[in-house]
């Protein structure tokens, strides 16, 4: 454990809670691609959480993924989600320069449960939880989608207090600039156009031709859902098995809000069915554990919206195209010097998502 970091955390918690704080344990957690996480066990002497607490410290990593929020932006989304009643750990005590100069960070209440995809879809201890998971997730999605540009007009607007995204961005790398999804549509008026432009930008930065992805993107462009049909709401942006915690008694918490933005509900409903997120359970189209109707029924009841399966299918193709591009870009990160074996292995798997996108297009015709 880094003593210097521990002392800085104690100082920050003392200032934030207005009473002495001592850190008993500090352990790095396996993080995502754009944040560093630590498990912090702290004794707080005052504030609403006084006592012995398990917390997660979530900080910007050195490298950020294009289109992802930094921790300052993410904190605002989590606060809005908590206020809307979403089952997600509360975020507290934002900090800057705590883990690294220039990095934004905040603390999350610790939540228990399993997030590893293979175990969520296969563990015998979670069998009863899986039976009601689609129902629970449908209700949570309805709460997430209750947040709209009308209810939260400035959720994604950068103001003087909002720091710029930290870390390397493709622009700073000197590569072709990519459209910024949030900058393109911070007020949320068109959930489709900016997203397709962003996806096109990701394709254009790949050095080799990818005719299958060109075909898929062109097809998506020509088969857009009817204009005006797509309602604009907050979307989680990475709503899938692996990004929520499950205990034997059911859904414990929705996590990982770094891809949240204005979008349209069918996007989140589709992403969880993207083949790669079924973790081998192809016969269970929702996240590897449920039938589509279970999720849609719960969502319709809780949200009052109607789910259009054809629209969801269109977004599932978008999801496969975007994940194909995302995996290719992870492979490119390896080639650019980020020598992580998993990055280059994921890049080689992009052909799986390309196949799936074409398979779905073939079935839609």
């Amino acid at each position, binding site marked *: 454990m880094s003593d210097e970091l521990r002392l800085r955390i104690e100082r920050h918690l003392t200032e934030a809670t207005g009473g002495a704080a001592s850190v008993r344990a500090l352990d790095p957690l396996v993080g995502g691609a754009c944040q560093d996480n630590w498990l912090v066990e702290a004794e707080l002497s005052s504030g609403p959480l006084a006592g012995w607490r398990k917390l997660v410290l979530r900080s910007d990593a050195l490298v950020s993924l294009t289109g992802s929020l930094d921790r300052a932006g993410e904190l605002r989304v989590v606060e809005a989600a908590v206020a809307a009643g979403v089952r997600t750990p509360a975020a507290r005590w934002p900090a800057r320069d705590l883990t690294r100069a220039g990095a934004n960070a905040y603390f999350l209440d610790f939540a228990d449960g399993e997030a590893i995809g293979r175990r969520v879809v296969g563990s015998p201890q979670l069998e009863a939880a899986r039976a009601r998971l689609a129902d629970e997730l449908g209700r949570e999605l309805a709460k997430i989608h209750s947040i709209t540009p009308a209810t939260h007009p400035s959720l994604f607007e950068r103001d003087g207090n909002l720091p710029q995204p930290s870390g390397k961005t493709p622009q700073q790398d000197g590569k072709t600039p990519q459209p910024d999804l949030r900058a393109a549509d911070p007020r949320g008026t068109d959930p489709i156009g900016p997203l397709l432009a962003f996806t096109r930008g990701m394709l254009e930065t790949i050095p080799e*031709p990818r*005719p*299958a992805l060109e075909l898929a993107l*062109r097809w998506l462009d*020509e088969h857009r859902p009817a204009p005006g049909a797509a309602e604009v709401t907050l979307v989680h942006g990475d709503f899938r098995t692996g990004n929520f915690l499950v205990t034997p008694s059911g859904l414990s918490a929705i996590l990982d809000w770094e891809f949240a933005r204005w979008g349209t509900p069918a996007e989140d409903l589709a992403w969880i069915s993207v083949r790669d997120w079924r973790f081998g359970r*192809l016969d269970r189209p929702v996240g590897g554990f449920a039938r589509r109707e279970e999720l849609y029924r719960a969502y319709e009841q809780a949200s009052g919206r109607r789910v259009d399966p054809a629209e969801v299918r269109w977004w599932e193709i978008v999801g496969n195209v975007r994940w194909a591009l995302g995996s290719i870009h992870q492979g490119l990160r390896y080639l650019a010097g980020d020598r992580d074996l*998993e990055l280059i*292995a994921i890049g080689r798997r992009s*052909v799986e998502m390309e*196949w799936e996108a074409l398979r779905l297009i073939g079935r839609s015709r």
Partner: protein
Amino acid sequence: MIDPPDKATLLDAVALFLVGELKGAVADPKLGFRVLIAAHLTASVAAELRGDDAQDAAELERLRALLPDVATQQNDPAERRAELARLNGELAKRLRGGALDGDAWRAAFDHLQATLAEKLRVVSPRFELKPDIE
């Protein structure tokens, strides 16, 4: 030319060592997972080496049929990769611009599905290729 065993056989031997001997001796589960990734990559490169020539030839033949106006009949194996890249670039350009429709689009679609299936048999041999997944 280096004497046998050939490249694919050597890579298979490395993959077998990684899974059969090293994996069991690694206590850290995260590192163990990375050993499996390394073994998978090594075995898939061995499969790629074995299938290379036939696969490239099949892809090139289909691309020539799709793009007769720009294809050459270049058959030098040393130039095959460059020709594949050039024709894939041309196909990508036409698809992006919407230049293919009707039967031509359908032919391109069928070619791309066949090519992806060939790649998957190398890269992800256990990937399920049946069309009717819900």
